[in-house]
């Protein structure tokens, strides 16, 4: 059956909202209330100085880039404070416990028969990658300290339709996950070629080592706790060390083959 834009538009729950809503009293009151206070009032002190007397020149891309840079400062201390850039391999018991926990969480939502592919630990956080029979991946970020685990975040991605070259990767690139509140993290998962021995991501100067297990890799790191989305996902460099000891560096999106 063909799907037309017209058909979809008939199902749009917002189609009855009038185009001139901004002229209604409620919208005018909202604008007046918001702009009655000084803007940029919650910037950290050290950044506020640079805002003094700010005047925006329309169309000046450099200003936009500079603004974005402010939102991308890597500050692992602001959330997931005990996160570590180097993961600790999970023991068999830890893998079984958190793998099972994640399977139950995802299978409750969408039964797929996920199998545990990888479990890693960074400080008090367990991170689990599951593989679905349909080729999808599912992830869980868990706080271990809670007696029954505490699901911080997680998501779906995939499938990965291609196999990596012996010295390469296939991935869905970096994705943002959050706890539904103020804590966000970035995750990246995928497959590594047979000759790949180690992966290290450069996250704003911090070397974040990935876990590599049986041809699958994963890494995650805290994102700034912010409601202000940056423009597009991170595209960090990843240094790939091969089994012969040589290494090379690429942007992770160069290996992006299937992101869902």
């Amino acid at each position, binding site marked *: 059956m063909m799907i037309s834009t017209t058909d979809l538009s008939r199902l749009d729950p917002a189609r009855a909202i009038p185009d001139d809503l901004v002229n209604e009293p409620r919208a005018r009151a909202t*604008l007046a209330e918001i702009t009655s206070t000084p803007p940029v009032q919650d910037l950290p002190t050290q950044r506020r100085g640079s805002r003094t007397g700010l005047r925006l020149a329309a169309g000046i891309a450099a200003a936009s880039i500079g603004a974005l840079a402010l939102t991308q400062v890597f500050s692992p201390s602001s959330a997931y404070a005990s996160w570590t850039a180097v993961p600790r391999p999970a023991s068999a018991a830890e893998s079984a416990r958190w793998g099972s926990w994640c399977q139950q969480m995802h299978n409750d939502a969408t039964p797929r028969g996920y199998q545990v592919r990888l479990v890693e630990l960074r400080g008090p956080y367990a991170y689990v990658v599951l593989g679905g029979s349909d080729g999808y991946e599912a992830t869980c970020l868990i706080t271990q300290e809670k007696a029954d685990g505490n699901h911080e975040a997680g998501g779906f991605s995939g499938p990965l339709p291609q196999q990596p070259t012996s010295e390469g990767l296939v991935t869905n*690139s970096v994705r943002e996950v959050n706890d539904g509140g103020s804590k966000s993290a970035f995750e990246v998962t995928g497959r590594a070629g047979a000759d790949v021995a180690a992966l290290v991501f450069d996250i704003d100067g911090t070397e974040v080592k990935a876990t590599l297990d049986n041809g699958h890799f994963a890494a995650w790191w805290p994102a700034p706790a912010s409601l202000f989305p940056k423009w597009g996902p991170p595209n960090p460099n990843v240094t790939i060390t091969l089994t012969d000891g040589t290494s090379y560096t690429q942007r992770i999106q160069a290996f992006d083959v299937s992101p869902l």
Partner: protein
Amino acid sequence: MKHVRGLRHEPGVREPRELFVEVFEATYVDVVRFAARRIDPGRAEDIAAEAFAVAWRRLDALPLELGQARAWLFGIARKLLLAHHRQANGMLLVQLADEVGVDGHQESVAGIADLAAAWQRLQPVHQESISLTAWDGLTGAEAAAVLGISPVAYRIRLTRARKALRALLDSTPPATLNRRATAREGTQ
């Protein structure tokens, strides 16, 4: 769909407040609609007001191109909605209209009912992918930014979402008109 143009390019510099007001005027209804598709429409203006308040506090991060500014505001609204729904998996259900306006032809009513039934079975991740272009009117790059994924990722995600919706439609039994599809004779 509303066509988004660039912000006015004028010689010289412009005050941040002037820029914000211009963005507010141009995007307010779009942000309200974005929220109304994902929450009780009666609360959509609350979410929009909160999103613009957040944007005002981070005016230095407001993109200067209107399409990007609109997508940036959608991204803020989406995070507010995720927090509202306490969605740990970072995905939002996209709702359908309670009453669906169609013409008086029985075939058309049935087709819309089938589409609505398929949509309800569609995974949230697919709903979001389709709605960002079909309803919210974003470009691929803008939709990718709203979701926090790469443009490549979004393109493939959208393709898969469309395939999933078609597959659900193909597997849906002929319409039983069990949805609240309201035929509005003579209106089309």
